[in-house]
Structures are given as C-alpha cells and as structure tokens.
C-alpha cells in the first residue's frame, strides 16, 4: 500500500472511531428513542468532536515536537505547558470552587504563563537542549506547586475532585466545553501543520537547516505557541491526557517513514483515532463509573508501545 492508501486507511479508521464514539456508552444509543436526539446533540456529538480535535492536536504536536527537538522521547508534556495549565485549574477547583468558564480561563492562563517563562528562558537563541531543560524544570515546579496547593487545601472533599480531574477525561463534556476549546485546538493544528518543511531541514542539524534558508528562531515560536495554545486548551477542557503525543508518531514511523513532514498528517489522524477509541472503551468498561481517559490511554498505549519495542529490538530506533 502506498502513502495515499495508508492515509485513506487512517481516515477510515478515524471515521469508524468517531462513529463508535457517537453510539457507544453504558447505554448504547437507541436511535428510535425520543431522548436519542437530545443525547446525541448535547452529549455524544460534542464529546466525540472534542475527542477528535484533542487527539489530532496531541498526535500532531507530538510529531512536531519530536521533529523540532530531534528527540524521539519528546511529547507535549515536556514543555511543562500541560502541568502549568493543570496548576491554574487546580487553583480554581480548590479555592474558587467554580467550574466551566473560570476553570477554562485559569488553565489557559496557566498555560500562557508557562509559554512566557519558556520564551524568556530560550529568548537568546533556538536551542533544543535549553528548550527541554526549561520545560522539565517548569513541569517539576508546577507539579510541586500543584501538590502544595492540594496539601494546604481548605476543603478535603475538593481534593478528590482535583485528583479525578488531573487524570483527564472527556466525560460529560458538552457543547459549551467544545465551543470554548475548539477555536484554540483548531488554531494550534493549523499552526503546527505548516512546520513540515522546516522540520525536514532540521534533521540535518540547526546550522545546515539555517543554511537552507529555514528561520529556526521563527520555527521555535510557531512550535511553542502552536503547542502551548493547543495543549493549554486541551488541559483546560479535559484535564491532563498524556501518552498520545509520545506514542502515536512512533507507531506510525514504520508505516510512513522517518521524514518529519511525512508524519504530521498521519500523526494527527492517528492521535484522533486513538483518543476516540480509548474514550469509547472508557465508557464500556464494567462498573458504575467511567474509567478516566488518561488511565485508559496509558492502559492501551503502554502495552502496545512495549510490544512495538520488543518487536524492533536490535533495529535502529530513530
């Protein structure tokens, strides 16, 4: 199968996963029931659309970050943007008690602060190592601050809500959540989709890329803003959902090759399919409550990834 055929297969997979996400649940959607259209329009459709956009953004930003940092271990989590967004959200949950718009705004503000700090730390030049170090330090700091906020929380019952929220889920996300997050997710996807050519050149190293006319400083801005806005909106709408950005590009590299630009579209599609399928499985798990999406993602992703690692033992990895 050539590249076009493989992409078509991924598109069909996304379509199937989207359809599954629309009908699957503790109650399979009964198409002839009078409640069906309300459930469909107000719950299932926004949830599936949010999963689609979120997965596409996470998969794409993983592929872009791995290409930009020339590091196969990179994923949106390394920037510290998601943990910083989570810090903002946790503050609101514990001390304002609000949800909805306040929570979204706080998480976006947290992500924005992380972006500003990253910008300040890497201001003097595009440097992949500085970028990773800055992100790692930021993650540790915001993680510690989150733990600190939880420890001094006035209301112990709110802590359970925070822990639940931190694991990330699409559960009960409605039209309002979709409307708030979608513009940011779409903007992020559009920004990141234009980086392929520069990422290809970067595989020769920074000096060679610049000699090919690539503005690496500008690329760093696009990557930082594109990932920050997308991940910030993602965290604000659904909590922290890891693994997608790390795993999806690796799963697709054997099929689509190692050239960064060849991986962008497949990674967006693969991320969307993975999130939609995982979210559907969350609803189908036994028990009264839904399994959290962040948990399901690791449960599906990790064994799959390990299997891939085992199969490729001894082969060049990147």
């Amino acid at each position, binding site marked *: 199968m050539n590249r076009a055929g493989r992409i078509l297969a991924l598109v069909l997979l996304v379509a199937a996963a989207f359809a599954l996400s629309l009908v699957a649940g503790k109650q399979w959607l009964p198409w002839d029931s009078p409640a069906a259209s309300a459930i469909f329009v107000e719950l299932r459709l926004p949830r599936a659309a949010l999963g689609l956009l979120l997965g596409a953004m996470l998969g794409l930003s993983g592929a872009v970050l791995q*290409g930009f940092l*020339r590091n196969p271990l990179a994923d949106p989590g390394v920037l510290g943007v998601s943990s910083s967004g989570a810090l903002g959200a946790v503050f609101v949950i514990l001390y304002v008690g609000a949800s909805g718009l306040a929570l979204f705004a706080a998480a976006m503000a947290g992500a924005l602060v992380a972006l500003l700090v990253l910008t300040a730390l890497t201001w003097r030049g595009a440097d992949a190592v500085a970028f990773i170090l800055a992100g790692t330090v930021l993650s540790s700091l915001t993680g510690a601050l989150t733990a600190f906020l939880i420890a001094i929380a006035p209301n112990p019952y709110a802590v359970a809500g925070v822990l639940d929220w931190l694991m990330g889920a699409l559960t009960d996300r409605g039209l309002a959540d979709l409307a708030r997050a979608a513009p940011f997710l779409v903007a992020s996807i559009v920004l990141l989709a*234009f980086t392929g*050519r520069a990422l*290809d*050149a*970067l*595989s*020769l*190293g920074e*000096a*060679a890329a*610049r*000699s*090919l*006319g*690539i*503005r690496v400083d500008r690329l760093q801005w696009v990557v930082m803003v594109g990932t920050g806005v997308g991940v910030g909106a993602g965290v604000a709408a659904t909590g922290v959902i890891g693994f997608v950005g790390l795993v999806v590009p690796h799963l697709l590299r054997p099929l689509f*090759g*190692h*050239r*960064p630009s060849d991986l962008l579209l497949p990674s967006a599609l693969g991320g969307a399919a993975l999130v939609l399928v995982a979210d559907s499985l969350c609803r189908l798990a036994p028990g009264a409550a839904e399994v959290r999406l962040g948990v399901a993602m690791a449960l599906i992703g990790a064994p799959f990834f390990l299997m891939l690692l085992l199969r490729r033992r001894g082969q*060049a990895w*990147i």
Partner: protein
Amino acid sequence: MDLIARDLSVSLGGRPVLHGVDVALRRGRVTAILGPNGAGKSSLLKAAAGLLPPQTGTVTLGDRGIGTMGERERAQTIGYLPQDATVHWNLHAGDLVALGRLPHRARFAAPSQDDRAAIAAAMAATETGDLADRPVASLSGGERARVLLARVLAGRPRWLLADEPLASLDPAHQIDLLDRLRGLAAEGVGVAVVLHDLAQAARIADDVVLMRDGRVAAAGTAAEILSPETIAAVFDVTVARLPESRIVVPVGRIAR
C-alpha cells in the same frame, strides 16, 4: 563576484572568536582554510555563509552585504556543508539529497522537473545514485559523506563552503571528494574548504588562508603560503617538502 569578509569580528557565547579578519574567497577557485584547532576556521566559514552575525565588519557578495540578502536567496546562492555529519532521523538517502532543493521550492509544491534533474545530477556526481533507497543509518561513513555532499550540490549553489569534509573518509575517498570540489571550481563555483591535512590542501588549493588565534596569519596563493617557514610559524611544526612538488608534510613539533 567574490565573497569578501572585511574587518570581520565574531563572538560565540560572548567569547570573541574572530578578530578583524580580512578574507577574499574567489569564484572558480578552491580556497583552503587552514590553522590549528580553535583558530576560528569554522567560525569564519559560518560567518561567510551568513550563519553567524558579525559584531563588526561585513561579509559582502559582489556589491551586497550578505546580511541584507533574504534567507532564501542566500540559501540558493551559498551551499554550506557542516562539519557535523549527524542526520537526526533515519531518512532515505534520496530524501536527504532532496532537502538541498528546499530553497528552490515553493511551500507545499511537489518537486519540479528541475528539482528532480538537479537531485539526479548531484547523486550522479557523487556516485550515490544507487544509494537513493537506502536508510541513512545503513550507510558507511564514506557513503554518508558523499550523500551529504550531494545534498549541498543539489541546490546548485554558486558558492560551496565545506567544513572539514574529509573527517570520516579513507584516503581514496578523500582524494575523490577533493577532486569533485576541484571540478566544481572548474565550473565556476567558488569553493572554500576547511582542512586539517596540509598535504591535501597543497594538492588541491588555489588559495590558502592560514588562521591562528582568530586572526588571519597569512593569506595568498597556495604556492606563496604553503612554505615550510610559514607553516612552521603558524602550526608550531617542522615540515618536509616532497621532492618536485609543493606538498608539505609535518614531521616534528616545535616547542613554544
């Protein structure tokens, strides 16, 4: 049109690495840039390629400052082959060579007839045509060096600045690669190459720039510069000259 650096000073991370360097790289000639480690050879090459901003002084191509050229135009004109031969992803050799056409291609445009012809010609010139479908990780050091050279040639630059391209090559491939650079100069391309091997420099260079401590210690034609006396003064080594040739070989260390 010569590529000329005037009174060029450059700092790296706050440390000055070039001090008031004056160098003229001429089209159709091979200029070897020689000097001890840390002399500023790579920095000179990068500054000449427009990749390091000068603190003082200028780099001009014809009547234009290299800093005033757009990235794309500069990339179409000057090909730069870095010392670091790392390729970060396991691309196919053919895709790697195709990267050399990036400055000539519009965004999202598929490779044109001209692009394909330039890629094929570059791979033919470096005898890498049969490697096109091989992943880079499977290439030998010599094959990889040839593929990376083909990447630069695919851009059909009018200037080729190569930083220690012989590093991973055996003697036969060293001679092959240098002969290719000679051939490019014969076609009118300006070639500047950082070398460590004095004998190879003597064999192929028309002009020589000798660097030491971020300054030009001597510059001129190879015949003028590659004398035992000049080399002894710059490299702290004694040299012997092969009979009936201008090839010099270091044979001893001079204590300073």
